[in-house]
């Protein structure tokens, strides 16, 4: 199970207003009653969309977008991987925002969806420009850590460990971790609580 190398993501954007967007809002709890992730895309932002007909995920002009543009502390709250799974299955390939909650970031990384941060000013500008020009093609380049939007290039950031997982194709960790082999058992054998004190 090697995972694909991800160097860049190209596609149209979808801007999502609001800060502190928690994972209950991305996928409300009642949709977690399932044993697979299949079909979750139908319920992404279900309650917000129901309450707001103009919600970006209701707008036809953003259909087919692959880069989600968000604000601050996106994905806070519950650790449910159902949230990034719902976004990915809807078509999101990467997320650009002011900041991300840690567990959400790790979950996105684990399924091959890079989350990068840009300055608050750039996040705001990007949301505005995508809202005005939904047809604009964006490019997220993980090698140069740049977001290309029209003539502009925005500096993007991501912890180096995660960035290398995408560039090396090791974001799906299981096989990388298995490569440690017997070193796992050796570490365990040195822990007093494993050996019964």
């Amino acid at each position, binding site marked *: *199970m090697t995972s694909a190398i991800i160097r860049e993501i190209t596609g149209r954007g979808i801007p999502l207003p*609001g*800060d*502190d967007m*928690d994972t*209950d*809002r991305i996928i*409300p*709890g*009642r949709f977690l*009653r*399932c*044993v*697979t*992730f299949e079909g979750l895309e139908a319920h992404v932002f279900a*309650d*917000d969309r*129901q*309450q707001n007909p103009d919600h970006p995920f209701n707008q036809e002009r953003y259909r087919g977008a692959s880069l989600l543009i968000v604000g*601050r*502390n996106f994905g*806070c*709250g*519950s*650790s449910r*991987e159902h949230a990034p799974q719902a976004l990915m299955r809807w078509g999101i390939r990467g997320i650009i925002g002011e*900041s991300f*909650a*840690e*567990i959400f970031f*790790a*979950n996105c990384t*684990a*399924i091959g969806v890079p989350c990068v941060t840009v300055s608050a000013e750039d996040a705001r500008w990007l949301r505005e420009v995508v809202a005005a020009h939904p047809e604009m093609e964006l490019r997220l380049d993980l090698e140069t850590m740049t977001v290309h939007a029209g003539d502009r290039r925005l500096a993007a950031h991501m*912890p*180096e*460990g*995660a960035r*290398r*997982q995408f560039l*090396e194709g*090791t974001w*799906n*960790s*299981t096989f*990388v*971790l*298995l490569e*440690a082999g017997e*070193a*796992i058992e050796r*570490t*365990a054998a*040195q*822990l*007093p*609580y*494993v050996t*019964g*004190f």
Partner: protein
Amino acid sequence: MAETLLDKVWRLHTVRELPSGQTQLFIGLHLIHEVTSPQAFLMLRELGLKVRFPNRTFATIDHIVPTDSQARPFADWLAEQMTVALVKNCQDFGITLFDLGSGRQGIVHVIGPELGLTQPGMTIACGDSHTSTHGAFGALAFGIGTSQVRDVLATQCLAMSKPKLRRILVEGTLPRGVYAKDVILAIIRRLGVKGGVGYAYEYAGSTIAAMTMEERMTLCNMTIEGGARIGYVNPDRTTFEYLRGRPFAPQGEAFERAVRWWQQIASDPGATYDDEVRFDAATLQPMVTWGITPGQSVGVTEPIPEPEEVPETERAAYWEALDFMSFRPGQRLIGTPIDVAFIGSCTNARLSDLRAAAEVVRGRKVARGVRALVVPGSEAVARAAEAEGLHEIFQDAGFEWRKPGCSMCLGMNPDRLRGREICASSSNRNFKGRQGSPTGRTLLMSPAMVAAAAIAGHVVDVREVLG
């Protein structure tokens, strides 16, 4: 060189440094439940892999269980399907399951500690963000997603980056009517819901030292609501005495050897921290949330902030919250009518929480029109509470006494708010739609405050009820 508990536990569990620069970290205890594990087992089966250390993973059923009748099959066939999947996965892979009616079932973050599975110096992972709870014992405990559950099942390891460490010092004596829940809500209010991103929190100071293990669990539980994935308290005599004699704790001489090791893994005096903040316990009062994040709270006698008191970067979230809650700037929450009172959740459904609520409820009646329920955190908590007669105190007052589970904290089972109901809740999240109704409203507070609100029919200052 003086080291912190984070330094020591991280070092002891490091299998190797990964090419990415991250650490391959051994996970000492893995807890699973029915919501975030079925897809992980599916991936494991597809890869043809086994569970690497089946005796280091333990399972229970908590999120989707109904709390009225727990007779199988459940009326909700989706919940039934998830339960069947968990039972089968545990059987197929040799994992111990604390099933309904086993006497050991309950909310995963309640049973881990009460069974003595949770111990100092461990790394603990679970597909649930409130895994930070277990940090109360001086463990590094954190929530993970389903792909990482797969990683732990397959390798007993995770690829992680070591966080920075912030020490949060709380000094002094908590006033009567002010609880661990109020301490953590006050911490989150000051540091913000994303203030802890990139950090682990070490809670210390005389207030924390005086706390019981159950109080420390409440404190560490909501660490994630402040953005930090890990929050811990250094293990001490209180920790050791709690663990003594628990079913999965070391027994006899092994226990004494364990205590010596546990003492060694606590942070050394003179260890350095990346940041430090201080709180004065004597100035704290009962807290209530007014918004849609756990950081949007006030002391019960304080008004909701005016817009100009809110930093400009927080203002959009402020108006969104007031709009959703139908509150006004400057409004005081005392007197706010409630429709539902919920005492439960991994934050506040342990025996001491039920005792604190029962102290308020004893001899009183739930206000007309208020739906009130108590959901014990585990079968063991329910047994202990019933042995003390707490269930009768609640039932006599008009509370429903339910069976253990996560219940109305997240509304995955039939326990949900309806429409725009307002719920006084001892749970951990006031997010939009969290309690099962897309427009339902949550006021987070301590169990005693919930009990007082249930009796009055509106938000009150529990200190006045307690006298």
